[in-house]
């Protein structure tokens, strides 16, 4: 390779490496701001904001969904498999909302430590399979 070309190639490699490390450091320092939602453990540990809106994500605990006043208001527990947080929501739930499903709720904590949601989004998982396969999976292995 001719020296001029080699020099240009090295220059390009250095440029890309420099930008990558710069962006890498920037992303690392903004790491918390890039999180789309807080986990339930964060909320229990008091890391979530107290008086402002934030998003809370987790799995809906099986058997925890109830409608206390027999109307549109629904109450359920969210978990990240270590801590649980109770969520209340009045409104229409997305189609994919069900027990054992991941969701992201936007809202704030009230005085009782209950998360009052203004919006609930369903977070679907990366698994795709026909219903029959899902049914046969359910038998031996509960998850």
């Amino acid at each position: 390779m001719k020296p001029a070309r080699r020099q240009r190639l090295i220059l390009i490699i250095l440029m890309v490496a420099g930008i990558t490390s710069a962006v890498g450091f920037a992303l690392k320092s903004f790491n918390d701001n890039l999180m789309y939602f807080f986990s339930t453990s964060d909320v229990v540990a008091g890391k979530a904001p107290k008086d402002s809106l934030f998003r809370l994500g987790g799995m809906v605990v099986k058997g925890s969904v109830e409608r206390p006043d027999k109307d549109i208001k629904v109450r359920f527990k969210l978990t990240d498999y270590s801590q649980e947080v109770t969520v209340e929501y009045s409104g229409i739930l997305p189609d994919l909302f069900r027990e054992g499903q991941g969701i992201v709720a936007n809202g704030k904590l009230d005085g009782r430590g209950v998360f009052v949601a203004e919006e609930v989004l369903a977070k679907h998982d990366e698994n795709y399979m026909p219903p029959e396969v899902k049914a046969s999976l359910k038998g031996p292995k509960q998850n």
Partner: protein
Amino acid sequence: MFLIPDSIGRWFHRMASPPHFYALTEQLLPWLTALFWLFLLPGLYGGLVLAPPDYQQGDSYRIIYIHVPSAWMSLFVYVLMAVSGAIGLVWRIKLAEIVCISSAPVGASFTFIALVTGSLWGKPMWGTWWVWDARLTSELILLFLYLGVIGLYSAIDDKRAAAKAVAILALVGVVNIPIIHYSVEWWNTLHQGPTVTKLDKPSIHISMLVPLLLMAAAFKLYYLIALLQRARLELLQRERNAQWVKTLLKDN
């Protein structure tokens, strides 16, 4: 020798001769088009008819057969654009510059399709058209990078200087590619994790995976066809004063 073996270098230089490229691609294009249909039609039929509905999302998951291949292509085309831009910068090969700039509109279209189909999919499944999570935002930045490349190229009149500027912009944006791919692993996002592009076994049933891979192959071929057509046009424009173009025009 430094980094690149001699034989590959020679092959590049031969491929990079404009008349050779123009003649070769003319012969190649019908075959590529035939191959494209050969993958697209079974892919569409398999995805829309043969594949079973999903256990959670029913039939609406079928948008995956457009969304996922376009999202893959949006990343693939960008990497190819940046690499050919770098080759153009280092070796000053005119054809590499042309491949770089001809990739941009195709990549931008794939990115746009990925964003739109994702939005259409998000509304019924997540309950929202758009959220500012890391995956969606970084993919939107990718669209702006493509648009920046296209805009920069057309803003500079001297096309050799424009190609250099564009290559540098493309190389700067390369850092976004791993961010898009790993965004769903590094941060909490509403978008779910990868289904196919991971070291683990794909978490999609084989009957749904096969049409997806067929569609991915079809999209790759489509890109190749669109790229070659754009590149041929760009080449003719840039070489309009060259002898081989004059002879070509006289012969037709």
